[in-house]
């Protein structure tokens, strides 16, 4: 089942008992953010939230926590809502192999219903904007799919980027924008600014659930997010042409904002309570002038709460960060079994791998740090044996406690790159990185006393399945 827009997905969430409609009047602050914050504190299968009675607004419709549970993440991929996390990641990796799936262009995008242009642009009149965390500098668009093109190669569909970046609303037609230097849009902006040119941009809000996943997914520079969305949906992604920029944008978006990043300009932005669980302080960031807004009648404003993990952000980017690292590592090291990069967007990664020879696991750890995503994240890698499930943290802690000889198995490499937002970086953008090799040493690395491990009984897997069936049948 592929969803072409947010609304059809919200209908499915409601049918599956995964959407909570809050019809009592709430305050825009602090209620909206606090309710979404609370979804991360009530268990793994929290529902999405829908608000339509917000004080002072007449037509506000706000959806939050749409991807904010394993059940919702499974449903977004068209899987049964109780699919275990490890299976969701494996299915994601399996569908990846269908990449690229060409998108399908449609002309009748519902966001063509209403338009604001030029002097008439006022994003406050279209969107019920609100603050998330106490210290935030303002109101944010934090779940958009932002489209930009390579100024040196504007006709290359693959180099057209679709990504999620934090965007502060700093005026009725002005936005502040954060392109992390490791991300594709920062490369587009650098090329434009080197020529003294503005960078055209399209910001799409309220997208179908797979667009939100691919927009937050670390992909190669010349890989198309739309072609990946097609692979993950199992059907071509519907796209349409944005009227001002001519960019390819999702057909099903609620709102399409177009304009330019003004060349060579920086203005104060933030702070913002980030996915790291810390505020990133005020920085001077690029600014966007909005020239056109297209929107569905009564648009649903989709936002996500983020702050101290776990929040929706972690469910949204957790699995989609595991898969590229898994694919890139396996390309050269087929011994790699599974990758858990679900903690803080992969600042810490757990990898299970078989060993080719002594010292091999440490090499896998170093490779993880030099993948495109690893350059900006992956500050700590824990390597575990092939029979340890990296998503099973008690097993990982067992491996750490039993297999690690700190003098030989902990490697610290100074002064490597990391994204500026990493709270532990010093200076911002630079960090030491650590490998913890919690695998069993193999020859010629002969250390420790690992010759007589206790293994699960041969009948255990069968019994585990049988017990699960009995529990399910009990209701």
């Amino acid at each position, binding site marked *: 089942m592929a969803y072409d827009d947010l609304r059809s997905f919200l209908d499915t969430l409601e049918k599956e008992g995964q959407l909570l409609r809050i019809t009592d009047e709430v*305050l*825009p*602050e*602090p209620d909206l953010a606090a309710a979404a914050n609370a979804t991360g504190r009530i268990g793994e299968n929290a529902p999405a939230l829908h608000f339509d009675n917000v*004080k*002072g*607004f*007449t*037509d506000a419709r706000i959806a939050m926590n749409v991807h904010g549970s394993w059940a919702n993440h499974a449903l977004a991929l068209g899987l049964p809502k109780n699919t275990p996390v490890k299976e969701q990641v494996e299915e994601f990796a399996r569908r990846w192999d269908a990449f690229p799936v060409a998108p399908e262009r449609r002309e009748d995008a519902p966001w063509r219903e209403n338009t604001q242009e030029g002097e008439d642009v*006022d994003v*406050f*009149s279209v969107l019920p*904007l*609100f*603050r998330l965390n*106490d*210290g935030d*500098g*303002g*109101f944010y668009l934090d779940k958009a799919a932002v489209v930009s093109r390579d100024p040196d190669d504007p006709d290359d569909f693959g180099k057209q980027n679709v990504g999620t970046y934090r965007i*502060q*609303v*700093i*005026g*009725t037609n002005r936005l*502040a924008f*954060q*392109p*992390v*230097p490791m991300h594709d849009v*920062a490369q587009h*902006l*650098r090329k434009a*600014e*080197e*020529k*003294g040119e503005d960078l055209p941009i399209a910001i799409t809000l309220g997208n179908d659930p797979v667009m939100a996943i691919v927009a937050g997914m670390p992909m190669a520079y010349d890989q198309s997010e739309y072609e990946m969305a097609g692979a993950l949906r199992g059907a071509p992604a519907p796209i349409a042409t944005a009227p001002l920029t001519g960019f390819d944008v999702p057909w099903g978006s609620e709102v399409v904002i177009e304009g330019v990043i003004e060349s*060579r300009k*920086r*203005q*104060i*932005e933030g*702070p913002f309570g980030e996915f790291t669980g810390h*505020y990133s*302080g*005020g*920085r*001077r*960031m*690029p600014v966007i002038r909005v020239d056109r807004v297209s929107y569905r009648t009564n648009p649903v404003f989709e936002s996500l709460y983020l702050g101290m993990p776990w929040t929706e952000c972690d469910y949204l980017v957790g699995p989609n960060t595991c898969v590229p690292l898994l694919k890139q590592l396996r390309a050269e090291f087929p011994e790699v079994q599974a990758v858990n990069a679900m903690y803080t967007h992969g600042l810490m990664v757990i990898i299970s791998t078989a060993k080719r020879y002594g010292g091999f696991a440490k090499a896998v750890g170093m490779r993880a740090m030099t993948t495109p995503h690893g350059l900006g994240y992956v500050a700590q890698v824990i390597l575990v044996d092939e029979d340890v499930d990296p998503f099973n943290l008690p097993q990982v802690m067992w491996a750490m406690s039993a297999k690690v000889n700190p003098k030989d198995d902990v490697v610290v490499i100074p002064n490597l790159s990391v994204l*500026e937002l990493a709270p532990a970086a010093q200076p*911002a953008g630079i960090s030491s990185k650590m490998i913890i090799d919690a695998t069993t040493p193999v020859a010629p690395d002969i250390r420790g006393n690992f010759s007589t491990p206790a293994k699960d009984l041969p009948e255990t897997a069968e019994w585990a399945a049988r017990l699960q069936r009995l529990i399910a049948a009990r209701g």
Partner: protein
Amino acid sequence: MNHLPVECPRCAFAEISLLATSPVPGVWDVVQCGRCLYTWRTIEPARRTQRDAYPDTFKLTEADIENAIEVPAVPPLLK
């Protein structure tokens, strides 16, 4: 609302402008500081709207704003 706040809770700057008013008349305004761009809704809790209740840790000075690092840095112009 009848009048704008007199100072920014975050940086104490005295030029505050109006960005939006509530669709239901008279319920709230969204206002913004002309210096640090801090944006708030007038009915938010005091810890976000009043200078004396605003947390010290989030306060900004003029120097903080001027000296904030550029992310990303503006690249040199190609000749």
